[in-house]
């Protein structure tokens, strides 16, 4: 789960977060749309009473980056697989007036919906719907065409994604928590969804990770053969480091690879992806 449940920062705490976030904001400034997304994030956080944490900033930079690549369509339909505290969903909803398909594990989906309730208030009952069957998702999709809204799907029903006309699919730090078989199922879903509508998949996950059951995951081994064209392939600059309150304050994200993503081409699903990477001081060069 990404995102943060911190209360709003005030005084010295706010100042320190600002200082630590400065290098990341400096990276973000190169994206033309950053200021607009940043403002949307501030408005959202004020509304829900949460702090502008590093996790939120990363989501903001990711969306500004995607806007810069012109893959986020105003009023389009996006899917967020594994959001945290509905951060990315809220940004897509408010910044781009999008229809968002939100897929998550039941427990975290409940937390996502709770945060959307805090944000949308009265509109929550009309704009947010959880669907559990093919009939219901098709009905809701036809009722909400071009209307900013959220369609929630429990992860166990992820095959419902196949019926969604998705412009953009976002997965940040989530596939790295799944078993390879489940990752493949999601790729099949996305590939099927892309038959309705050409889709872009933004995938940002660790290069290597060992799951609690000992399964080794490797980003390069994801089933990329389902993809069609690579729009961008890079190491994600805003996921190289993180800060915390313990000395030496700045640390590199733990990862096990210097592997850079590769380009795969066939006909259905365009991929836009980057991987977590333990770069050495690259952020501050």
């Amino acid at each position, binding site marked *: 789960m990404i995102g943060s449940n911190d209360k709003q920062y005030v005084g010295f705490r706010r100042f320190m977060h600002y200082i630590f976030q400065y290098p990341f904001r400096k990276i973000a400034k190169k994206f033309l749309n950053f200021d607009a997304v940043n403002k949307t994030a501030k408005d959202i956080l004020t509304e829900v009473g949460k702090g502008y944490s590093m996790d939120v900033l990363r989501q903001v930079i990711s969306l500004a980056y995607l806007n810069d690549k012109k893959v986020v369509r105003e009023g389009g339909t996006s899917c967020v697989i594994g959001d945290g505290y509905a951060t990315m969903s809220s940004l897509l909803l408010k910044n781009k007036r999008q229809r968002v398909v939100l897929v998550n594990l*039941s*427990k975290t*989906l*409940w937390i996502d*919906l*709770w945060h959307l*309730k805090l944000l949308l208030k009265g509109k*929550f*009952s*009309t704009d*947010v*719907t*959880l*669907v*559990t*069957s093919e*009939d*219901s998702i098709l*009905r*809701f999709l036809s009722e909400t065409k071009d209307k900013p809204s959220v369609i*929630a799907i*429990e992860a166990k029903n992820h095959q419902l994604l196949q019926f969604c006309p998705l412009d953009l699919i976002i997965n940040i730090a989530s596939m790295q928590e799944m078993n390879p078989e489940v990752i493949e199922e999601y790729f099949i879903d996305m590939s099927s969804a892309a038959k309705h509508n050409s889709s872009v998949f933004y995938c940002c996950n660790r290069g290597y990770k060992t799951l609690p059951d000992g399964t080794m995951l490797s980003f390069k081994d994801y089933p990329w053969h389902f993809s069609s064209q690579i729009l961008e392939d890079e190491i994600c600059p805003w996921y190289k480091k993180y800060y915390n309150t313990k000395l030496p304050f700045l640390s590199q994200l733990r990862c096990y690879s210097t592997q850079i993503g590769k380009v795969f081409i066939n006909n259905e699903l365009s991929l836009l992806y980057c991987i977590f990477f333990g770069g050495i001081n690259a952020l501050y060069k």
Partner: protein
Amino acid sequence: MSIYSGDEAITYLVKKLHQKDEKSSSFWNKIMKI
């Protein structure tokens, strides 16, 4: 029913998690009262 709007969706998820996770039922009971 396979479509849950707004608060119905939250109630549906909380009920389901409550049924699944008996050990933390006191936590879910508190949530259900909100």
